C-alpha cells in the first residue's frame, strides 16, 4: 500500500526538519522544499493513470478542451498553494500573497476562451429574434 510509504516518508521528513532546525536553521528550507517535491512527485505518479483515464473518457463523451482546462486549473491551484504555504512557513507572507494573486490572474487567463464562448451564447440569447 502506497499510503504507508507516503506517511512514513512524510514523518521522516518532518522529524529531519525539526532536528536540523535545532542545529542549523538555514538548512530547514531546502530540506522542507525537498520533502514537498518528493511527496508531490509521489502523488503525481499515483495520479497519472487517473488523469490518463479522465482524458480518454472526456475525449469520448465530454469536450477534451474543457477537461484539459479543469486539470490545468487544478494544477495551478495546487502549485500556487504549496509555494504560498512554503513562503509563509519561511516568514514571507507578502510573497505568498503576491504569488496567490498571480495564480488567480493565471486562472482567469485560462478561463478566457470559455468566457468568450459563454458571452457569445449569452449575446445570442439576449438578441434573439
Amino acid at each position, binding site marked *: 500500500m502506497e499510503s504507508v510509504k507516503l506517511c512514513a516518508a512524510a514523518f521522516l521528513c518532518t522529524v529531519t526538519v525539526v532536528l536540523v532546525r535545532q542545529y542549523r536553521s538555514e538548512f530547514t528550507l531546502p530540506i522542507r522544499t525537498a520533502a514537498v517535491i518528493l511527496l508531490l512527485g509521489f502523488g503525481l505518479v499515483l495520479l497519472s493513470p487517473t488523469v490518463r483515464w479522465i482524458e480518454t473518457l472526456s475525449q469520448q463523451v465530454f469536450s477534451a478542451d474543457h477537461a484539459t482546462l479543469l486539470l490545468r486549473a487544478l494544477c495551478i491551484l495546487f502549485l500556487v498553494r504549496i509555494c504560498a504555504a512554503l513562503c509563509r512557513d519561511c516568514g514571507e507572507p507578502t510573497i505568498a500573497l503576491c504569488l496567490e494573486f498571480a495564480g488567480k490572474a493565471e486562472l482567469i487567463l485560462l478561463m478566457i476562451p470559455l468566457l468568450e464562448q459563454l458571452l457569445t451564447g*449569452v449575446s445570442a440569447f439576449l438578441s434573439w429574434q
Partner: protein
Amino acid sequence: MMGRRYLWAALLIAWSLVLAPACAAQEEMPELSAALQSFWAELPDEIRRQLPDSLYDAAQGFPDSEDLLEATSFSSVLQTLRDALLGTLPSALKGFGQTLLCLLFSAVFGVLCEAWGRDKLTQTAQICSRLCMAALLCEEQIVLLRLVSATLQQLQVIVNAMLPVLAALLAAGGNTATAAAGYGSLALFLNLAENLIAEFFLPLTAAVCGLTAVVGLSDRGRLRGLLSCLRRVLTYTLSLFGVLFSAVLSAQTLLASGADSVSAKTLKFALGKAIPVIGSAVGDSVRTVASGLSYLKNTVGVMGILLTLLPLLGAVMHLVFRRAALTLGEAAAELLGCEGEQKLLGDFASINGILLALLAGAAVCFIFALILFVRMSLVISA
C-alpha cells in the same frame, strides 16, 4: 428559407381545400411534387428517416390509394412515432452523459479545491468548473432554441397566411355575415396568440436563458434580482395568456368538444402536470383538439393530420428528453454536493419547461386555426 416556409404553408392550405379529393381521384399534379419535396426537406432528419418509403416517392409521384392507406394506417403511424422517438433518444442520452460527466468533474474538482481551504483562490478555481457547465448548457440550449424557433415560425407563417386567404374567400363567396361574425373573431384571436408566442414569449424566454447562464456562474452576482423580475414577468404573462385562452375556448361554440372519457381525463391530468404555467389550459383543450383532429381526418384524411403534426414532433421530443436529462442532472448534482451546478441545471430545466409550454400552446392554437379554416371555408362556400 422563408420562401420554403411560405411554400409549405401554401401546400397545407391547398391540401385542406383542394387536394384531398384530388388525391382520392388519383389525378396527376406535377407542380405538387416540388412542393412536397420542399416539405420533406423541411422535416427534421429524425422524423424524415422514420417515414415509410411508400408515403412519397419523387420518381413515381402519388402512390396508389391502397399503398397510401397502408402507409397512413394507424399501426404505421404508431410505428413511425415509435421509431422517431427512438431516433431522438441517442442524442438526448449523449447530452445527459455529457452533463453527468461534467458534474462528476465539478464534484471531484470542488472536493480537491476545498481540501486546501475555502478562500478566494479556491473560489476562483471553482468558477472554472461552473463556467464549463454553463458553456456546455448554453451550447445545447442554443441548438434547442433554434429548433423551437424554427417550428414556431413555421406555424406562424401558416396561421398568418390563413387570414388573407379567408378574406379572399369571404370576398368571393356570398355568406359573409355568418362567416365573419362567428369565425372571424376566433380566427383573429388564434392568429394573435400564435404571433404573441413567436414574437414576444420566445425572445423573452431566450433573454431569461442568457441571464440564467451569467447569474449561475457565481453566488455573489448582482443580476439575480433582474433575472427574478424577468422570470416573474414571463410566468405571469404566460399564465394570463393561459387563462385568456381557456376563457375564449369555453365561450366559443364553433369548435365542438369531444365526449368526456377516462382517457381524456388522464391525458388532461398528465398534460397539466408535465407542462408548466399553461398546462391546465392545454389540458382543458384536449377534448376539443381530439374532436378537431377527428373532424380534420374526415375532411382532409390522415395525410392532412400527418402534415400538421409531423413538424411539431421533432421539437417536442427534443424538449421533453432535454428537460428530463436536466432534471436528472439536477438530482445528480444534489447527490454530489455541487450546489452551484445544481441551481444552474434546475434553472435550465425550468426554462425548457417554459419552452415546452410555448410549443404546446402554439400547437393547440395552430390546430384550432386549421380546424377553423377548414370549417370556415366550407361555410363560406355553402
